[in-house]
């Protein structure tokens, strides 16, 4: 397996600085290299929502090219996308129904082999 530059738990994001806007929660979303071209090259973007589904909807609204990387045509999570709220894999927290809070970081990572 590979370990890399992902730094969990840092609290220096614009998302945190913005806080809540009109009641909606703003979270910081960290994108892997392969998804950045679909988000104007940004490594970190902000999105709003109380659940991962709402966060993804907001991401797609801002960056429509991301849709096919985040969701299947049926609206489920992409099979090869690992999503963590802070450091917790959402596949075991209700997937798209996973709740997000105002100080949370959502990290997207591709599923790759190890061993």
């Amino acid at each position, binding site marked *: *397996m*590979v370990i*890399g530059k992902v730094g969990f738990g840092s609290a220096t994001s614009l998302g945190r600085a913005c806080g809540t806007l009109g009641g909606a929660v703003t979270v910081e979303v960290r994108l892997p290299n392969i998804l950045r071209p679909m988000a104007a090259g940004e490594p970190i973007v902000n999105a709003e929502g109380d659940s991962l589904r709402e966060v993804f909807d907001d991401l797609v609204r801002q960056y429509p090219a991301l849709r096919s990387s985040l969701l299947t045509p049926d609206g489920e999570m992409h099979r090869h996308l690992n999503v963590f709220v802070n450091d917790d*894999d959402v596949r075991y927290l209700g997937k798209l129904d996973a709740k997000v809070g105002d100080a949370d970081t959502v990290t997207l*990572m591709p599923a790759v082999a190890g061993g």
Partner: protein
Amino acid sequence: MAHYDSVLDTIGNTPLVEISELSPNPRVRVLIKLEGVNPGGSVKDRAAKCMIEEAEKNGSLGPGQRILESSSGNTAAGLAMIARVKGYPFTVVVPENVSVERTKLLLAFGAEIISSPAAEGSNGAMRRAQALAKEHPDWFFSYQYGNPANPKAHYEGTGPEIWRDCPEVTHFVTGLGTAGTIIGVGRFLKERNPSVSIWAVQPPVGETVEGLKSLDEGFIPPVFTDNDGYELVDRSRVVGPRESIEWSRRLTEVGIFAGISTGAAMAGVAKCAKEIDEGTIVTVSPDGGWKYLSTDVWTGDIDAVVERARHELYF
């Protein structure tokens, strides 16, 4: 100490050691299974032995036949050692950015090494091995990511050993690579006690070494999906390189010199211990630290070691 007829008979039956003094929660015990004492140096000796013996039994591997695998090191070492003992030639595809000790160990056991590009990671090594397997249908491709003998080794070995030595286990926390350990041990423990919680620990995918052009090139081991891994596993946490390295260093306080994947597993154990009120956590130390000495994980400036971890395969 018993007398063994072959070094291969010394694979498994590894020690389970209590290290509760490192637990961040005084009501949570922590025990660690030291797989580095296996003769090939890692937990992967178990899967390697089982894959070879199953293939011998079902006729897909016979005398003199070449074995093929892709591996970032430990499975390769186990297979190389066993292949040497049993007289099979062995070819392994290894990403070129693994630590120098690992390639030298493979050469010591007489393996033929084919390097795959660092930028393609373990996925690239696996794709190259799959292509070689097609070119050479007469070779035995052990394919650790999809071989049922991989989780079987843990269902029949590691799992029963943990249950024998620590039936009070409430949480099993282990790293996720091929998923052989978590599937085999997890299933065995859940069958004995359905309330045992199974936690996966994932190291993050390196930004410079993720080796994908699109998400569709991603990979989930069939060992995981074919065995209902999503249903078996209760929680999965990702851990960072810095905390993995810090835990590798902390383990020396209790006399354990283990590889960085052990540090990652311990970082996951710490998260689990902080979250639960009480319990007994069992985790696995996949290997010792010897193969990583050149990386200065224990002795270098931690910022420099973390930075280097972006470019070198540590797991």
